[in-house]
Every structure is written in structure tokens, then in C-alpha cells.
């Protein structure tokens, strides 16, 4: 190793003195756009919360690796300032209020309507925009909030495409039962499912409203075995969905169609159940095989490739949703030619763009357009989720009626 003598030291010091003024302006050039919020990195919603967070991180990294974004001729680097709300709405509201007090202008959503709802009320009061891909409860969108935008259609509208799917099944199912839990999302979606399915001509045999955290559904299974509807619709969260399916298998409760809005989209769920996961249907809001074009990433497929290159966590549609929240902000800022919260909010409200998540447009109440952003229907086949509805997005034919648990291979 060369010895750092007096001459070399003087040379280095001189070079540093000359370079310093050049470095400083370079640092000062890029301003910062801070995206605040909270997300469940622990607690009951952590599994999907982590997926959403990975989406946020991936998009931020992507933009910063490209040198930031340019808004109205000025260069900005993006900064993500998310905190773990531990799936606790009370903690989330404290975290959001603190960030409002610190002057953060733009917010990303947590996961779970029970958290998004109270945090959105805070950002609304402060007139700061929030774009989220984690809350679909109607209560978020029917309170006249102007600054809250959700990628998902509100819960009661999320079943429109599902009913069309049920109608398309041959032979057409006649009866259905609904299992929901007593939380803002599951209950609203369950009630929406009942109304929409009844309007679609299906007959309700039973509806079960369970506590938010389920440990046993044996009595539900006994009732299902007694009446055996053609379809069992679960509007439950991931862990609860898995528990229900496990108990269905273990108590030999067979139905021609098991449909869960959340759960089977997760690899953990499918790995746990193995062959038994086959033929279970799930709402799918995004698939990397879809031909969506994106101004920044190129396409849904290219986003997926970029994500997999930089992450080891399996890609889920919530991840793509999280990343899209960031790209929507950039779209809105570019359109508004401003980084002022009010201008960005106005631009978001009229945004109609193609993204890696598909074409995004918000309703006047801020939720995602039910036609453009409504779910497709997936079915687990050979351990993977294949799209079975609508016909335009199909990657496989529907397996119906589902084989009995004992006959699954």
C-alpha cells in the first residue's frame, strides 16, 4: 500500500478543495419528494402489508436508479418514509399525524380498510393526497373525502365481475353461502356479494358472520354439510381463508365451487394446501402476463422482471398495486406540472392513464373504476393461479365442479 506522504496529502487535499464546489451543486440539484404513510410490517395484516411495501420500495428504487423524476423542469429524487403500523389502526393514526406535523405532503396507503379509513380521515383533514392499494371498504369512499384515491373499486362493487363469472359457469350454479368476518372490508364485501348474487338470480342458503379472528369454524362446516350450496363465497382475509379451507378439507365438506376473495393468491396458502388448493377460485386484480403497457416500466411483464431481479419475496398483485400508487403520483405531478398537494390532487382526480396495473381511472368518490379495475377471476391449477374469467384474459379453462377433497390429485 502506498504511503501517504506530505506531498501526496497536499495533492489530495488540493483535489478535494477543487472538487468540493462541483459536488455540492450536484447534491443540491435534486430536490426530494417524500412519500409518507404507514404499512403493516408486523401484526395480522403483515403478509399482504409486506407485499404492498415491497411494491412501494421497488417503484421508488426504479425511479431513483433512473436519476429521479422531472416535474416542470426540475429534477426530484423520491424518498419513501413508511413506518410499521403493526396492523393497528390506533398506531397508524399516530404515525400519520406525526408525519402531517412534520410536513410530509404525499401519502401512500396502509393495507386493510380498518387502517386506511382512519388514516385517510387525517390526511383528508390536512388536505394531503393519499393514493392507496390496501383499502376497499365503502366507508372510505362514501364520506365525501376528496384527497383519497384507491386503486380497488369499493367493496360493494367488487363483486360485479364475480357474479358475471358465476353466471358464465356451466352447468350454472343455483345456490350460494357466504362466510365473512366482522371487519370493515370483509363484512362490506360479504354484504355486497349477497346483494349482487341475489340480483344475479342465485339463491342464498346461509350467511355466516364470524369474529375478526377465527380459530374454529366446525359449526359452519356442519351447517354447510347439512345444506351443501353450489358455491361457498368467503370474503375473508388470507389467514382466515386458509383456516376455513383447512377445516373444509379435514371435515370433508365438499362444495362444487369454493371462492375466496383473498388467500389463494398467496404462495404460502397454495404451498400449505398442496394438491388440495386445486380448483379453488380467487379474485385476481393483476397478473404479470397481462398485456398492460406502462410509461415507466414498459409493461406489466417488465415490471415483474425488474421486481424479481431486485427482490426475493414472491410477486403478488398487491405488490404491483403498491408500485402503481407511486407511478400514479408521478403521472399526476407531470400532468399538474407541480408538486403542490392541491394541484396533484386535482390531477389525480381526472387521471386516466395506462399503467403496469392496467388502465387507471378513479370515480368521483375516489375508488377505482369498477369496470377498468374490477377483479378478474383466477383458479388454482397445478399450484399456480390461472385466469379463468373474463374470456379475454383467460389463461386456462375453469375446472367445475371442483373434485371432492378425497379425489384431488
Amino acid at each position, binding site marked *: 500500500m502506498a504511503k501517504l506522504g506530505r506531498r501526496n496529502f497536499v495533492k489530495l487535499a488540493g483535489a478535494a478543495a477543487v472538487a468540493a464546489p462541483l459536488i455540492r451543486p450536484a447534491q443540491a440539484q435534486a430536490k426530494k419528494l417524500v412519500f409518507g404513510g404507514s404499512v403493516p410490517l*408486523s401484526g395480522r395484516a403483515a*403478509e399482504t402489508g*409486506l407485499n404492498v411495501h415491497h411494491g412501494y420500495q421497488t417503484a421508488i428504487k426504479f425511479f431513483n436508479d433512473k436519476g429521479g423524476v422531472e416535474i416542470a423542469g426540475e429534477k426530484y429524487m423520491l424518498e419513501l418514509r413508511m413506518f410499521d403500523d403493526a396492523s393497528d389502526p390506533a398506531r397508524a393514526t399516530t404515525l400519520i399525524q406525526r408525519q402531517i406535523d412534520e410536513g410530509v405532503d404525499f401519502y401512500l396507503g396502509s393495507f386493510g380498510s380498518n387502517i386506511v379509513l382512519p388514516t385517510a380521515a387525517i390526511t383528508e383533514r390536512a388536505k394531503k393526497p393519499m393514493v392507496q392499494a390496501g383499502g376497499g371498504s365503502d366507508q372510505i369512499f362514501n364520506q365525501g373525502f376528496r384527497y383519497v384515491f384507491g386503486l380497488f373499486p369499493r367493496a360493494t362493487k367488487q363483486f360485479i365481475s364475480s357474479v358475471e363469472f358465476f353466471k358464465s359457469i356451466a352447468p350454472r350454479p343455483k345456490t350460494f353461502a357466504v362466510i365473512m368476518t366482522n371487519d370493515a372490508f370483509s363484512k362490506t364485501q360479504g354484504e355486497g356479494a349477497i346483494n349482487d348474487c341475489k340480483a344475479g338470480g342465485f339463491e342464498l342458503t346461509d350467511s355466516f358472520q364470524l369474529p375478526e*379472528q377465527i380459530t374454529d369454524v366446525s359449526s359452519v362446516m356442519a351447517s354447510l354439510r347439512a345444506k351443501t350450496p353450489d358455491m361457498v363465497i368467503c370474503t375473508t382475509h388470507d389467514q382466515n381463508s*386458509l383456516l376455513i379451507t383447512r377445516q373444509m378439507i*379435514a371435515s370433508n365438506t365438499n362444495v362444487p365451487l369454493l371462492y375466496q376473495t383473498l388467500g389463494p393468491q398467496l404462495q404460502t396458502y397454495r404451498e400449505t394446501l398442496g394438491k388440495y388448493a386445486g380448483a379453488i377460485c380467487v379474485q385476481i386484480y393483476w397478473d404479470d402476463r397481462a398485456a398492460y403497457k406502462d410509461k415507466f416500466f414498459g409493461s406489466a411483464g417488465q415490471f415483474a422482471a425488474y421486481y424479481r431481479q431486485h427482490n426475493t419475496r414472491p410477486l403478488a398483485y398487491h405488490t404491483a398495486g403498491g408500485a402503481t400508487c407511486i407511478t400514479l403520483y408521478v403521472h399526476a405531478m407531470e400532468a399538474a406540472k407541480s408538486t403542490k398537494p392541491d394541484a396533484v390532487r386535482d390531477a389525480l382526480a381526472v387521471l386516466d392513464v395506462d399503467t403496469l396495473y392496467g388502465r387507471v381511472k378513479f370515480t368521483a368518490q375516489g375508488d377505482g373504476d369498477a369496470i377498468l379495475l374490477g377483479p378478474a377471476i383466477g383458479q388454482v391449477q397445478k399450484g399456480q393461479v390461472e385466469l379463468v374469467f373474463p374470456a379475454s384474459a383467460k389463461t386456462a379453462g375453469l375446472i367445475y365442479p371442483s373434485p371432492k377433497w378425497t379425489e384431488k390429485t
Partner: protein
Amino acid sequence: MQLVLQTLVDGLVLGGLYSLAAIGFSLIFGVMNVVNLSHGVIVLIGAYLSYFFWQTLGVDPLLSIPPVMAVLFCLGYVYQRGLIQLAVDRSSLVASMLVTFGVALMLRNLLVLIFSPDFKSITPSWAFTFFVIGPVTVDLVRISALCASLVLLSLLALALHRTGIGRVIRATAQQDLAARLCGVDVRHVYGLTFGMSAAFAGASGAILGIVMPFSPPDEVHWTINAFVVVTLGGVGSPSGALLGGLLLGVISTATSQAIGPAFPNVMMFLILVVMLLVRPAGLLGNAFSGSR
């Protein structure tokens, strides 16, 4: 009739799990008068250890119960002697509640760090096996959970009533001063009791992991459940925990069937309040310090 029978069987099976999960809590409360708010997280550590053995070594979850119990016995002993005893010595029994609450928070986050917050599930090859007896369908997982619970609770009852260390534990629970006067090393007995409690909590965790998916935040649920079971059945005895657990299981499934699946928790806490008012020592309560 078929539905009633099925509900009863489901309730008993669920109750077996509740009993085993609560016995450790009952023992610590009965002997040391300590309300262990980290009980639920110890149950979950048992579940995660069993998951670890199953994932990495392919050990069947039921066979992993002895090593899980051994590990948790040691951890429980050290936890009591190194932390809880210190808190009780320096302050009061209330301090032990704060300490166990703090430890529960820390351990819960440690589990998140080690195993990720994603839910886990132990599914051995026989996890989805079921059999039909007459009009009743019973799944093998739950019936094995009930059998394992009964065996373990019987072993604990035997240990407490037929062995020397059991006699010493009971003596300490009844009157620690008298036990000291008789030359019993009460601190060591407290450590052993805590170790045994942690071991049984761990065993219930291993069984719980086969029955349902689990994740770190579930610990609160298992602490509350244990509290209700102990209040119902009585403090400090395996028979009390067994009775309390089975009753709670049957009440839970019967409420779910008769009133609605949203109401088991309502009924559970209603019974808790009634029991605290009418019979605070529980159905099989005894004169151990926790129930005095």
C-alpha cells in the same frame, strides 16, 4: 340430533386444545400468583419450534413435542429465575405483570424477525385425514390434538400428585413460608414450575400448529383464552384446566351453532364476568395462592 352430536364432538376437540394451552398459565398463577402475560407468546414459540423441526428436519409435529418441551422448559426456568424473580424481589407481583407484558412484546417482534410476519402452518402428510363415525365427521388432526392434550394433562396430574417434586410444588403453592421452613428451595421450585408451564405451553403450540395457521400476533388470543379457561375451571390444577377448556370449547361451538358464529367471544366473556362474580376460584378452584 346429528348437528347436536357434531357440535358436541367439535366442542370437546376444540376444548382439549384450549385446556392444554391454558394449563401452564394456571400453574404459574396458582403457584406463584403471577399473571403471565407472555403465556400466549410461549405457546407460539412452541408452534414455531415445531414448525422449524418439521421444515428443516422433517420431524412429525407430534414427535417434535418432547424436544419442544425440553427447550421451553430450559427457557422457562431461565426466564423465571433471571427476570421474573428479579422483578418480584425488587418491586411487587404487579411488576411481574409489566415484565411479562414487555417480554411478550419483545418476543412477538423477535418471532417476526426470525420467521417473518407471514402466517405459517404445519401440514404433515396426515393433516387432512378424517373419518366418519356414524353421523359424525371427525378429522384426525383435531382428534390427535385432543388425545395429546389428555395424555399430557394426565402426565402433569401424575407428576404433581405422585412425584416428590410435584409434592414440593403443591406445598409451595399452598404456603410458601411453610415450605421454606421445611427446607424447600422455593426459588428453585418457582423456576421449575415456570419451566414446566412453558414446556406445556410449548406442547400446546406444537399441536396448535397442526390444527390452524398461526402468526406472531395470535399470541394475545392465546393469553386471553388461557385466562378465561383458568377462571372457568379453577387455578393451579390440571383437572381445572381440563374442565375449563372442555367447557369453553363446547360453549364456543354450541353458541356458534345455536346463536350465531359471531357470538362465541361474547358468550366467553359473559361467562368470564359471571364466574368472577359468582365463583372467583373457578369450578374446581382450590386454596392455592392465585385463587385466594
